[in-house]
């Protein structure tokens, strides 16, 4: 271990109780979304950082959707961004929790509560790393921005997305503290294409269906064509082939289901909502279906749209309406920030991280779309505990995460 890494490790170890108390406190201040009001937590974080002499700013583009930005360092060099979201998903059925979801209790080194894993544990570690970085303020070049953001669980319109689109935050690299078991560097994610299919037919009385044209039956035909598109394996760019392979293996291992890995190199389509017809005894002249399609690295939204249009080209009276779309994004593993964190993680924890491309969306995509290399690395088993009952995280992961974040910042800003 480099002397500096040893020093970082000791520094965090010495104050680990303070760190875990912070994580626990973050859980005790509810910030469930919906409704998504994070004001109490945001002002707690602002005050907490200020107490350590960190200058902070807040932004509130929509009532109670507050972003807190803490700044350490100088403007004269590179800017590293730490990003963590404050909001959590709702608790669901309280009876299915075996403990108070807002107690933030630690039992046998496990921290329990809504947000423990996704991602108040990670946020506490990011905050703590920034606080400890203040000790080195005179030794670093550039600065570290910590973004504590709202609204991640519901699309980020007033959180990360808003901050980047309005140039509130600019930077050269970003680390997000989303849970990855400290095992994964989540460098890429699938794209997202939400669309609606509409079929039109001809109305007739239900007793004479031969005189009409049934829009629902037409939709079934459309669905079968779309299903065909999800069966093809997507050609992955060579640079990411190996990463996709190891990501698939990891997914298969954690879920115990080898088919699950296929989502990483296949289009998936969830036929989420279907509505057709008005009355049982009328031939339906309209049917609508909403589809949530996820696009693997190697394909783009416009390519998928072209495939869909081609697949249904011979069916009359059907159209596609785009609701929402984002291309897949990926940060190259060759980026300096990835390399630094990878190295620090390998040294400070017992794990060499796995470079990983994931199926679900995170705020990382907004940075990547702005050309800022970004990836997630953080404490917690997100596959098991994110959005789940009895959410929890091991305190050791939070402590190790803080070490890796601090060491990474020191190295990137040296």
């Amino acid at each position: 271990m480099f002397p500096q890494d040893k020093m970082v490790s000791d520094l965090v170890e010495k104050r680990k109780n303070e760190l875990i108390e912070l994580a626990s406190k973050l859980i005790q201040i509810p910030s469930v979304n919906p409704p998504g009001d994070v004001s109490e937590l945001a002002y707690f974080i602002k005050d907490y950082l200020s107490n350590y002499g960190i200058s902070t700013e807040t932004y509130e583009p929509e009532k109670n959707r507050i972003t807190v930005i803490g700044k350490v360092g100088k403007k004269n060099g590179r800017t590293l961004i730490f990003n963590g979201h404050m909001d959590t998903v709702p608790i669901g059925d309280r009876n299915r929790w075996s403990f108070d979801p807002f107690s933030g209790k630690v039992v046998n080194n496990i921290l329990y509560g809504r947000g423990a894993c996704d991602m108040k544990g990670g946020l506490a570690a990011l905050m703590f790393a920034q606080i400890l970085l203040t000790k080195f303020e005179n030794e670093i070049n550039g600065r570290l921005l910590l973004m504590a953001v709202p609204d991640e669980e519901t699309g980020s319109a007033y959180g990360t997305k808003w901050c980047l689109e309005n140039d509130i935050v600019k930077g050269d690299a970003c680390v997000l503290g989303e849970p990855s078991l400290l095992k994964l560097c989540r460098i890429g994610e699938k794209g997202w294409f939400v669309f609606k299919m509409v079929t039109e037919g001809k109305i007739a009385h239900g007793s004479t269906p031969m005189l009409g044209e049934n829009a629902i039956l037409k939709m079934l035909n459309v669905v079968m064509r779309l299903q065909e598109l999800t069966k093809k394996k997507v050609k992955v760019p060579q640079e990411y082939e190996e990463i996709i392979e190891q990501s698939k293996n990891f997914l298969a291992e954690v879920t115990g289901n080898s088919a699950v890995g296929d989502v990483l190199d296949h289009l998936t389509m969830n036929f989420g909502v279907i509505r057709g017809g008005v009355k049982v005894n009328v031939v339906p002249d309209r049917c609508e279906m909403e589809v949530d399609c996820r696009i693997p690295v190697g394909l783009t939204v416009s390519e998928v749209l072209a495939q869909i249009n081609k697949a249904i080209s011979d069916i009359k009276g059907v159209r596609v309406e785009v609701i929402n779309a984002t291309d897949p994004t990926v940060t190259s593993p060759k980026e300096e920030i990835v390399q630094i964190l990878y190295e620090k993680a390998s040294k400070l924890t017992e794990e060499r991280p796995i470079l990983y491309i994931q199926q679900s969306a995170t705020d990382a995509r907004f940075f990547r779309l702005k050309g800022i290399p970004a990836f997630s690395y953080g404490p917690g088993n997100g596959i098991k505990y994110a959005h789940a009952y009895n959410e929890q995280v091991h305190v050791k992961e939070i402590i190790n995460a803080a070490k890796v974040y601090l060491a990474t910042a020191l190295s990137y800003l040296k």
Partner: protein
Amino acid sequence: MEEVKKAGLETPRINVIGKLKSSHGKEPVLVLDSHTDTVPAGSGWSVDPFGGIIKDGKIYGRGASDCKGGLASMTAAMDALVRSEIEFEGTVIITATVDDEIAGTLGARYLLEKGYIKPTYAIVGEGSQSTTEPKALDVVTTFGGRTWIKMATKGKAAHGGAPHLGINAIDKMIKVILAVEKELKIKPHPLYPGTINLGTIRGGTKTNVVPDYCEATFDIRFGPGETVDNILNKIGKIVEKIQSEDPELTVTEITPFERREAFEVPPEHELVKTLTKHIVNIVGKPPKYVGTLGSGNAYHYWDVLKAPAVFFGPGYPPTLHKPDEYVEIDMLKYTTKIYVLTALDLCKPLM
């Protein structure tokens, strides 16, 4: 009014029953039934829909054919029977009933279920003027059946980005629909091909969640020889088969929420034979025995008491529910005479 409210209706419903005083109240009981309600006038009329205008041998207006023409003929026939002072061993009844147009239960069905009338057979005055020959009358002796079936599938919710981890109830419903459309064979009848209409589908609540529920409704039409239970059995077998091929496919519901059996009154039945005899006498041409998709009030006689019932009335079916609805005066005259003669023939006059 209590029953009216229970049926979800507001305005009072009044059925009228007229019994020939000179009937001795024994069997057979012949009911002449016409409904008093009409569909709304709608637009596109060239005459006042409520003017009852007489022009070129026709009476125009909403209800002329459906079914006030029939009601007028039946009333005139009763009047003639009263004036004749003929006594009957059997019974002749006229009913003017409500709610036919909304397929309600407070009209003929109510009278039957409450036991106010106990017919041996019934003539329902729905229009049966021939659509193929001028100045001729047919008899509707065959009535199609229908059943409306709701089916539901159950899945397992999961995140939309990982559809493999859930079971999509919409996908499963699609399998069910395709199997039903392909494999459900409805027994054909010369007048009814047997049809299936997939009327509605509803599934899922959010695009990014694998839907755990989907439901669809079917409108199935069939002719005599097929029954609702038989159709349900066949659907049950189809579902069983696809469930055995796909363990993740779960159909939670196959519920008929409307059932009307098909039925026919055979040409050799006394009622049809007697009507035919008098149609030949009065019109000069034998009737055709035809079928209809809906069964109107005839269904209630058959369903509640298994009493044979036919449609025979002066109205002209192609004008039903349309603007410029009319009835031919000649048909009114014919049917009045035929009702009288048929009652005289069937109800054992004591002369």
